[in-house]
């Protein structure tokens, strides 16, 4: 094949691609499938355990609605600065990326703090019974995502503000990070429904 006289010259094509064109998008997609399946399996386990006992929760009151509902609102509201960050990244608008990424981080601080209060409002300990165990694991797993999403957005923001090695692909990173943010927000909705309304619907 090396003796061919015609070549396909790729020197002029770009060095980046957004969305499904980028490698990172696919890795993020894979991660979302993995973690989405993890959430789905815990929810299925929750329903499995719920079906085995006459009362749910077996003893004690249902979780308080206030903090969980507040956090749902904060998480959903964070989609606005997140969308603006993504849009800004996709038109290489550095000033807007800086602004909206910072706003996103403020939201992240907010839902991390409220999440801490949510555990107290569950009205059950993890070692009380199987109900307590599965509720804590469900909320705990989502919390791991909320915390890691905050931390990786923070590192990304530092890179953007410091400006090291700032090329097109850094903006692709911002765009993919925003995609993952959506994942963390939207997986919360079924989990919220299960944790807070599972005990209220018989």
């Amino acid at each position, binding site marked *: 094949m090396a003796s061919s006289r*015609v*070549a*396909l010259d790729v020197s*002029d*094509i770009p060095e980046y*691609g957004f969305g499904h064109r980028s490698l990172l998008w696919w890795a993020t997609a894979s991660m979302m499938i993995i973690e989405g399946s993890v959430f789905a399996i815990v929810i299925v386990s929750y329903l*499995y355990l719920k079906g085995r006992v006459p009362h749910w929760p077996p003893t004690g009151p249902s979780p308080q609605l206030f903090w969980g509902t507040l956090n749902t609102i904060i998480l959903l509201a964070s989609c606005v600065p997140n969308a603006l960050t993504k849009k800004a990244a996709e*038109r290489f608008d550095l000033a807007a990326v800086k602004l909206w990424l910072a706003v996103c981080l403020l939201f992240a601080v907010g839902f991390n703090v409220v999440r801490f209060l949510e555990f107290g409002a569950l009205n059950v300990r993890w070692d009380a019974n199987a109900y307590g165990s599965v509720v804590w694991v469900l909320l705990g797993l989502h919390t791991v995502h909320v915390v890691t999403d905050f931390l990786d957005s923070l590192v990304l923001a530092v890179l953007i503000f410091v400006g090291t090695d*700032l*090329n097109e692909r850094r903006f692709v990173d911002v765009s993919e990070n925003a995609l993952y943010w959506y994942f963390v927000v939207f997986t919360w909705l079924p989990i919220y429904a299960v944790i807070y309304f599972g005990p209220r619907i018989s």
Partner: protein
Amino acid sequence: MTPGETKRRRDDERRPRLADHDARLTVEGLERERRALEKTWWNGRGLVAWLSDTDHKAIGRRYIVTAFGFFTLGGVLAALMRIQLSRPDNTFLSPDQYNQIFTTHGTTMMFLFAVPVVLAMGVYLVPLMVGARSMAFPRMLAFSYWMYLFGGIFLYSMFFLNIGPDNGWFSYLPLAGPEYGYGKRADVWAQLITFTEVSALVVATCLIVTIFKLRTPGMSLNRMPLFVWAMLIVSFMVIFAMPSIVISSTCLILDRLVSTHFYNQAEGGDPLLWQHLFWFFGHPEVYIIFLPALGMMSEVIATSARRPVVGNLTMVLSMLSTAFIGFGVWVHHMFATGLPELSLSFFSAASMMIVIPTGIQIFNWIATIWSARRLQITVPFLYMASLFFIFIIGGLTGVVLAAGPVDRQVHDTYFVVAHLHYVLIGGSTFPLLGGIFFWFPKMTGRMLSDRLGRASFWLLFVGFNMTFFPMHLLGLDGMPRRVYTYPASMGWHGLNLLASVGAAVIFVSLVVYLVNVIVSLRAGAVAGPNPWGAATLEWATSSPPPAYNFSPQPTVASSEPLWHTELAPPPIVGLASDTREVLVTFLLDAEPDHRYPMPGPSLWPLLTAITTSAMFVWSIFQAQGVVWGSIPIFIALVGWFWPTKGKKALEHGAPTRLTARESLS
């Protein structure tokens, strides 16, 4: 329109072009390019360079060698069991030792050998087969290897400290729970699973992205080699199946360490939840081990028959439907648990249905061999052909076991042991050994000896059947699995002795295989690029391939590029040779999309794996290890992702790079 939007629009229109009589294609041009690539992809010498290597071929080789190391350890454990069972009322092993040995044997073979080694074949071969210069995310790949290695070391350290797991490789509750599973043994098992699932999930992601986005131009999905299809499907199975074991093993550890009650009947939990979650992973796991072997079968059979496999499309669809159905049969492992009749019938039918796609593939191979231009009975072909005998026996006993009533009769007997070894060894290890024989010249540049290869194959074939065929009869006669001994009055000693002698024959055959590898590494015939006359792209480059795989990168115009040289598709020019650049293409038709620099060697994956392993081990002794142990991991990850200063990746050939940061906003 902002300047950024203008730039986006302009960049989206930048397409590749055909260059006629390009200066870079002259002999001197190609030589200059090759020298530059050698320099760019050179990894350096010495220990640090070795530890920081991110080349998929180096990592693939390490995975394979390590997996065979664990295979040897698992094999030694099997030999100890066969010695113990060779005569009745034997006291060679104590019951407790026997429990740890069969558990560690099963765990090793499933989690440290079968899955990693088939994924490793993909790690080595897939980028070469799709004509890419590198795997996607090479540093993640390096991380996955270290996690796997440390997990294996962890299991065996614990085993030698007499805290090896002892509840069987599927660690059933309540035996493995806090009530009965004393000490740290069940925790060791559960945490080993965490190590291996992290590594498998990372490899699966790397494989998917490589297959979707790094195929060389012209390799549309319908031109992809069947082995690559198999690895793609398997990677998806990994990412859908593993989450189930992630959750179940985490809940097991939580039950044991912080008193949750997932599997505790008394507090509303259910031991059967474990079985559902485990087998929802565990059954697809069998196909995760088996499908790559089918991919290797197809490549070897096509090469031996010198024609493409008959029914390429049905092969792919069969593998896909096997993967789908494989997720719907897990309950056939639970027929003896007293589930409702209806679900037994459903899962019984689903389990029998899975025979159909497997049958289609087997008939396609037979048709391929039948219509061969000139069939070459090479050693790899022998290994593959043995599947027709061994795997089909295993498959047939599988159909038998899929019937609920029969299953209840032989549940937990040696009949099941015989079945699973016929399926897994016949369906995966035989093709794997054939695959290693087939690609050994590519990996090392030297051929394995044909004579030793044939000797080793026939010894293995005879030894295998001697060991495992009698187990069918023992099982039908009621001998339970996992018993450390049996009384002489049961009359089982003859067949057991036969099985033990067979195990000795297997041992000899594997020693012959190993000797063949060692001797051939030094003195084997020099292979050349394509010793078997195969059709796929990995044979288009030298043996062993250079670090950058191809120069110039070839494109393809058919699914058997090396058999259709008359098509002569144009090679790629214009990829950077001063950075490790790869060509990213579109998913369906692999048209060129953009160029992308791969990261070079780095120690961070190793450091991240060390910190992660430390956290995993710490956490089974103290729950707060999860929190404090995460801090070093975070630091290592930040170090990993921090851009290296002064090494701008975009210095060349980029007419419109972003330079002034603020000017665009």
